């Protein structure tokens, strides 16, 4: 931001103003509320209203038959979900999916960022090229991985098969053990560029002198990474890991289009489960209840990250 603005003389305040009788402070207030009102209205209508309403719905019996006149059934939806064991299944599936997707993209993003480093000639071009997967729409990601994982002529299968690593003709998406790795692969591919650019940008904030001084003191690459890079990147890492966790709890498109939550529910995460309950079984009460549990989990995770963030890393 080095551009200096040209401030042209502006016309004097008009003689008549609807706010003429107000003090400066009051005018400030009117101005502020006019500015934030559109945002408040939209967010109330489409975010906060629906989420509050959703919490209420989760305590009602609200299925196709009772839609017109839902009745309060307190914790019945939750109890049913817990007792059937479904909820635990969804939560476990979500944790495995989110944990692996975020963990792998963290390692990939950090690894590539370190390889690119601060000084590599052609750094910007490389960063730009690595970002390309991020520009591909999720539905297209699902399409291309469906093709590449096709058992006979899918490129991934074919390559792994010719290298003798895997049985060619592996049915990825029909195999309960391999469907989850398949959707994880596709999700990681689209998301790792975000981590990567954040870490590349973060690495630039590390003062060169500090690294040089450590090198002179005989610190090896591992020691530099542990004692300089990681502490410097700490807050960037925390924010981005948290955002990635939240994003992947929401993940819908890729899983839905590749496996529809199958086979045998082995890829049914909370977000797919909510969708199936609410929009396939039309049980809004149960769907909303899953959503509330999901929100609760995210609140706890966010608080945990806030706590980590506030804790002094040097102490």
């Amino acid at each position, binding site marked *: 931001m080095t551009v200096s*603005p040209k*401030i042209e003389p502006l*016309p004097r*305040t008009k003689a008549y103003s609807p706010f003429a009788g107000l003090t400066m402070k009051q*005018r*400030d207030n009117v*101005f*502020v*509320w*006019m*500015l*934030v009102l*559109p*945002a408040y209205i939209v*967010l109330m209508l489409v*975010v906060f*209203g629906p*989420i509050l309403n959703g919490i209420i*719905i989760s305590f009602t019996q609200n299925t196709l038959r009772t839609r017109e006149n839902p009745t309060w059934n307190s914790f019945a939806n939750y109890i049913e979900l817990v007792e059937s064991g479904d909820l635990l299944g969804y939560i476990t599936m979500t944790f495995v999916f989110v944990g692996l997707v975020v963990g792998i993209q963290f390692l990939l993003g950090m690894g*590539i960022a370190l*390889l*690119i480093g601060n000084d*590599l000639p052609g750094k910007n071009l*490389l960063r*730009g*090229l*690595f*970002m*390309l*997967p991020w*520009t591909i*729409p999720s*539905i*297209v990601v699902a*399409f*291309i991985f469906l*093709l590449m994982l096709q058992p006979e*002529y899918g*490129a991934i299968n*074919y390559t792994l098969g010719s290298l003798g690593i895997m049985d060619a003709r592996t049915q990825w998406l029909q195999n309960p053990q391999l469907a989850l790795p398949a959707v994880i692969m596709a999700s990681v*591919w689209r998301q790792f560029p975000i981590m990567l*650019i*954040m870490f590349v*940008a973060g690495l630039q904030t590390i003062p060169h002198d500090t690294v040089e001084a450590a090198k002179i003191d005989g610190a090896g690459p591992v020691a530099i990474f542990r004692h300089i890079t990681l502490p410097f990147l700490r807050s960037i890492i925390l*924010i981005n890991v948290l955002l990635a966790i939240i994003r992947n709890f929401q993940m*819908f498109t890729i899983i839905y*289009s590749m496996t529809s939550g199958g086979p045998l529910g082995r890829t049914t995460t909370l*977000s797919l489960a*909510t*969708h199936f309950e*609410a*929009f396939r079984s039309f049980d*809004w009460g149960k*769907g*909303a209840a899953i*959503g509330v549990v*999901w*929100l609760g989990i*995210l609140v706890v995770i*966010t608080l945990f990250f806030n706590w980590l963030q506030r804790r002094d890393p040097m102490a």
Partner: protein
Amino acid sequence: MMVITRRRQQHIFQLTLRYLLLLFLLTIALFPIYWIVVGSFRDNSEITALPLRFTPAALNFDNYVRVIENSNFLTYYANSVFVSATTIILSIVISVLAAYSFSRYRFAGHNLAMNGILSAQMFPLVAILISLFSFFSSVKLVNNLFGLVLAHLTIALPFSIWFLKAFFDGIPRDLEEAAYIDGAGRLETLIQVILPLTRPGIIAVGVYTFLMSWDDFLFSLILTTRDEVRTLPVGIAVSFLGEFEYDWAGMMTVSVISSLPILILFIFLNRYMVDGLTQGAIKG
């Protein structure tokens, strides 16, 4: 002398190793994109032919002609363009106004509102959709492109407001003071003095909103049921998935056409996007 050359050698060796590793990773990372493009120029018998040919395909636009002539694709495309464009404009206007007041003024409920907006990002979208769907049904916004715009604002606004606030925070207040002394009103000052300085931030928010809106699948899946109002992602999913035999050539072709707008935007606005996004994250 010896030491210096050895060190140089070591440096060159290291550099080569890094490039080779990066090249290897880049090849894997970009292969799927290459494969989409290759697929779009082959017909289905070529795509499924064994052994696989990894070499580029001859330029053959038959698939493109077929896809574009096919009934609904252009409708989906036009819907997506309309929804994204409208969402971008609304998102920029609303978030500029809100972010500016969050940055410059303190008012009752300031922190609560800011935290609320931030935390909105973690609300489960599918759960929001349950209530949103019944609300939209009652006000005739289901199967309505404006309904989709409104829904897409849900995803775009929290980030945009938060991001632009950080951006406004970086602009010195002296500028406004000076403008006020010259007799400019508050809105004039915002539009004529501050906004021109926010251009990179506004572009970043616009691009981000575009990515979100263009990519959205979930809202469109629930809030539209008729082909005339479907957007691209759900449109092509409905057309191509669920077939017994996949039309890979068609899928790869619509994939190329759907990815093109973002790709072009990215090539031209790459710097704004990268700087914008990373600055926000590092400052925040």
